[in-house]
């Protein structure tokens, strides 16, 4: 793939997440999707860029705002949408919903809705790889809100102490729900926290997908080569509310509009147009392709079935021995 083709590919990956989630918001209004729905709109460059740097047998641990990660990781939009609908064809059989997307085939370990809860898990996945002499990497995503949790510090320390192949991806979107970083942390420079665990830590413009990919590739390469855990602070911004219940009292419209000037998708489009790699026709073809995929995903979810209530008590314990 030429560099131009690759950049177009990145744009399409981001666009797919954006349009998928816009459709999710509509389907939420239509009451097809219920419960909590946390949109990633504005932050697409982060998941898209980091996933580009991972191999198929690497592991991903994500948060409750993980539709983008699931799609960027290569999960089928249809099974993701079916999960949101609560259908048995969903990636978690409708047991998880929006916050708990899982996929063993892409080693996507959730979908963890406990802030900070995925970090110890990532340390363990990486520990198993290290003990088994496998050169796999575990990428764990979490928001800047998680750095206030004990599990963040315990996990950073353990990963560094044991030199484990973990890529810590801190998505700093400035707000933990409604609490701004400077209202919750005495030290707001997050890379310093990582540095205190002797971990290489880089600040990255999370609105620039190419910058994210470049940093992630560099970090993943080093982690895979035995360089121990790395920490990326990916600075991004959530354009939508925290969830569908959030009246956004904690930030100004001006602030949101200001950040929208740095929309990762618009920035990429502009740059591609400027360089003559994209025109209106190609863009509308791309939009059509994405819309087609999403229409198909929604149709798949609509056509899905409800798990029989008789199956309620399944999957509390394993049905097949794992050994």
């Amino acid at each position: 793939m030429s560099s131009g083709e690759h950049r177009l590919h990145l744009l399409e990956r981001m666009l797919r997440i954006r349009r998928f989630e816009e459709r999710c918001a509509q389907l939420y209004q239509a009451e097809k999707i219920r419960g909590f729905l946390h949109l990633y709109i504005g932050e697409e460059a982060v998941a898209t860029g980091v996933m580009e740097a991972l191999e198929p047998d690497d592991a991903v641990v994500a948060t409750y705002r993980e539709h983008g990660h699931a799609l960027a990781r290569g999960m089928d939009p249809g099974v993701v949408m079916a999960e949101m609908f609560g259908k048995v064809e969903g990636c978690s059989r409708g047991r998880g919903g929006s916050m708990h997307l899982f996929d063993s085939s892409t080693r996507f370990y959730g979908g963890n809705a406990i802030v900070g809860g995925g970090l110890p898990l990532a340390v363990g996945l990486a520990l198993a790889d290290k003990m088994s002499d496998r050169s796999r990497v575990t990428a764990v995503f979490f928001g800047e809100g998680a750095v206030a949790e004990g599990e963040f510090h315990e996990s950073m320390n353990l990963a560094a102490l044991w030199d484990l192949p973990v890529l810590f991806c801190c998505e700093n979107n400035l707000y933990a729900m409604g609490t701004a970083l400077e209202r919750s942390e005495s030290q707001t420079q997050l890379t310093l926290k990582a540095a205190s665990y002797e971990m290489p830590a880089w600040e990255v413009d999370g609105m620039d997908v190419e910058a994210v990919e470049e940093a992630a590739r560099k970090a993943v390469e080093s982690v895979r080569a035995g360089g121990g855990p790395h920490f990326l602070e990916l600075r991004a911004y959530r354009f939508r509310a925290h969830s569908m219940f959030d009246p956004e009292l904690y930030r100004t419209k001006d602030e949101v509009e200001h950040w929208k000037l740095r929309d990762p998708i618009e920035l990429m489009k502009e740059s591609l147009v400027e360089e003559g790699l994209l025109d209106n026709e190609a863009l509308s073809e791309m939009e059509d392709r994405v819309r087609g995929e999403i229409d198909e995903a929604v149709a798949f979810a609509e056509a899905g079935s409800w798990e029989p209530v008789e199956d309620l008590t399944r999957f509390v314990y394993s049905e097949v021995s794992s050994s």
Partner: protein
Amino acid sequence: MTDVIAPATTTTYREAIREAMSEAMRRDERVFLMGEDVGRYGGCYAVSKGMLEEFGPERVRDTPLSESAFVGAGIGAALAGMRPIVEVMTVNFSLLALDQIVNTAALYQHMSGGQFNVPVVIRMTTGAGRQLAAQHSHSLEGWYAHIPGLKVLAPGTIEDARWMLTPALEDPDPVIIFEHAGLYNMDGDPSDGPVDILTASIRRPGSDVSLITYGGSVPKAIEASRELDEEGISADVLDLRVLRPLDKATILKSVATTHRVVIIDEGWKTAGLSAEIAAIIAEEAVWDLDAPIERVCTAEVPIPYARHMEQAALPQVPVIVNAAKRLVGR
């Protein structure tokens, strides 16, 4: 002539657990032990003493005081194909890892629609009797037994200490093993195994009254049954062994035989395991009962330090004996 009887092999509860772990690690490369001071120190209760020398620091892995991270790491390693044994010093400390045990280990199979399972074994010390005061002595087995997705074991004999680990490690789901601090020095015959992790066991059969218990109270119930024997009362000592899932069939069968029940639980009465067992009997066997259910549990106080106060708080043999006698009208 002299009878030559080979002396029964005896071992302590502590040694039995160590042998179980060592044997598992010799047999299966995927098994490793991790926890606070399990290596160089030899384990806070000396359970893993000597294992570092045999297996090395990769497989007998000392951790920082980060319960949530190392329990979670055990869960993650299990997800990635290992068979970790995670030691938490005491059940009180395990509260620092509750998020990982309750929100991750117990839920991943279900939330993932059956895609991921967590074959981790988490061992922890429980119980009082050693004057360690309130933050090292509680019995919170019932908290864990409350959670769907976990399996909860309470070895109360040398045999179970020696053999329960094998099926626990073979189990595809998270298993919590409670080791009672007061039992580590108990010795006896480890037998040849294997044992299951499904059923309760009758430790002394009897016909007049059921003494239903588990863990550290098993030896107390057995002692009480011996005293009751002397008074002509035949007690059926039922060791639950497995606290989740509970073996209802064995409980109900014992009740159908004796018609009288004393439940002995080192946990507190309120909303505890003894309450659950009493409820099962009330729901499914109330017409088998000839007398109200008696419960001998820990007094509803944090465990105190002073020996006389600690002992007063805990289930004791004379209290069990008196409860049984009341039920048979003596």
